[in-house]
């Protein structure tokens, strides 16, 4: 099954949960300076996720199953400047 993360096509097994994608991306981004700053300050890494144009709330991560063709985006918790 194929879905897109930030426009890049990726292969997923049937039944993959959204939380697994979240964990993978969080792990990959954990050492970025902004993420580190935010984690040191809040204990959270602050990354946010969009699925097919809609913001996904953390309480939904576990209940969503990745579907064929899903468009997943991750966004840093930055606020301008």
């Amino acid at each position, binding site marked *: 099954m194929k879905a897109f993360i930030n426009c890049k096509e990726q292969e997923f097994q049937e039944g993959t949960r959204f939380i697994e994608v979240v964990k993978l991306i969080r792990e990959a981004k954990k050492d*970025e300076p902004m993420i580190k700053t935010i984690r040191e*300050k809040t204990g959270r890494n602050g990354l946010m996720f969009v699925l097919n*144009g*809609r913001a996904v709330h953390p309480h939904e991560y576990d209940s969503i199953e990745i579907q064929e063709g899903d468009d997943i985006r991750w966004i840093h*918790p*930055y*606020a301008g400047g």
Partner: protein
Amino acid sequence: MKSVWNKILRVDLTNGACKPEAMPDDIYEKFLGGAGMSAYMLWRECPRGTTAFDPANRLTFAPGPMQGIKQTGAAKWTAGAISPSINMNVDSAATASFGIEIKEAGYDAIVVHGRPEKPVYVVVDDDKVEIKDANHLWGKDAYETEDGIKGVEGEMFECVTIGQAGERLVRYANIQTRKKSFLGRCGLGAVMGSKLLKGIAVRGSQSINVHDPQEVDRLNKQINQRLIDMDNEKEEWLQIKRVGTAMATELFAPQGNLPIKNYQLADFPSGIKNLHASNYVKELRAKPWPCQYCVIQCHNLCEIKEGPYAYKGKGPEYESFAMVGFNTMVDDVKAVAYACELANLYSIDTISLGVVIAWAMESYEKGVITKDDTYGLDLTWGNAEAMVEMVRKIGERADGLGYLLGEGCKIASERLGKGSEQWAVQMKGQEIAAHNWRAQYISALNYCTGVASGPNHERSNSQHIWVGHIRLPEWGIDEVENEERWSWEHAADRNAKFHDYCNVINSACHCKFMEFRGYTLTDLCNTINAATGMGWSLEDLRRCGDRITQIQKLLNIRYGWKKEHDFNYPKRFMEPVDEGPAAGKIPVGLEDAIIDYYRERGWDDDGKPTMAKLKEIGLEDYID
């Protein structure tokens, strides 16, 4: 094509003629509107030899196809002209509602030229256009002028105005609208001043005819909800509506991105503490002050109730806060906010202001200027009182240093001499913004090669690949490692893409701050298509951005750009700091990176577009 009127308004201040003119579809298909339209007007009407204060200079105020569609971020609009700071074509963007009113008045641009015998303001009320006497407004600040115009014409008009710095031709004078948003960079306020044009008031009553209203509505709802949800998910201190962009300072500091002490230092502990977002909210009583249709609400209204810095009005944004605060080492949050608002009243760009005052402070520290030059002010680093007073001297163009600083630090340092050119942090006559090249080398490349406004952090905002973590995955910029900040690999490709991205945004006329919180290139492309019916692909979008960049480059060449201008960067670029995350980092290899960038753009090694490139994007007939 929908969502445009195929019509501009020409205002000739010399003979008082105001008339609509037709604009064919193919111009919008090539350049969209906004920045692209203002570049096109210069290309069509301002030949080689036209200068900033020449009455023939075209000052174009242009919304784009996204004005009037009620999408968050679609209040942005652009103005352009030949600039008195860099003496080439520039554009600058502002927000609030002025662009929307131009569009609803039935025009895709207002193009102003000429010079009357006495000060005037222009009133556009749908198809009724008048040029009115502004003698009674001349000498007033920018906000008083807006009040004065609205007092006569009515509160329903949206205005742009200038203050005394624009009248007195400060080379980095800005133009304000609604006492909250500014065409900040490159001295467009001085262009207005040179035309004795104190303000423009616009009111429109026409609905915009879009290609697919249902799809526009669907996109608006989806995008608005997403952006609201994304901001609500953030920790409170990261929410843009709470403190605006000034909160960025605490994320930038650990990256070494802040400008401190005229870009000489990497740390400023008392500044970090006192200019912190929480202190900003507390001391300035910041409250959201949104633009029309915007769900992000990054502008804020501040109030200092008493003391020497009492005021109620616009709260400083990141660039203002960083340049007027960190760069001068003034850590009094109230003094910084007050100085920025004072600059707004005079109509002074706060980015250039922060650099020229820092330049003067360094000159004072080195003994190049003394109290005899500073009106007796002790112009030491961090002296808030002296900094605020220097803003007044510049705004009033006081004889001596105040006048000189109003020329910008290139001219000022050339006139003062004594080595002061060494610490003038400018390129091509424009002061460098608040993104530090030591924190990401791509900023140096961007400042050197900018074509739309000289060195400008918003005409390619490639710094935000790292600083703000913007990605353009649709155009192939996604996975980027932190260490690549200090690498030239991919820099040419990335800077070119961000340059084109900014040109598309500034020509469609949308707010780049949406992109920090979940607005994507796909959203932009879908919205342009729903509004106009052009049916563009993401590649078409890039091609449009590329085309606008190329016409801006052709204009640079027309107005005197030479290759050496791109290589004449500030000496400070190659001076390292000795602490912080960017310790020891200087952009060695910048010269080669500039040449790489030329090639990436389809320019020859002299930095000029090749005929093959111009043919590829349909501009072969635009070369002089």
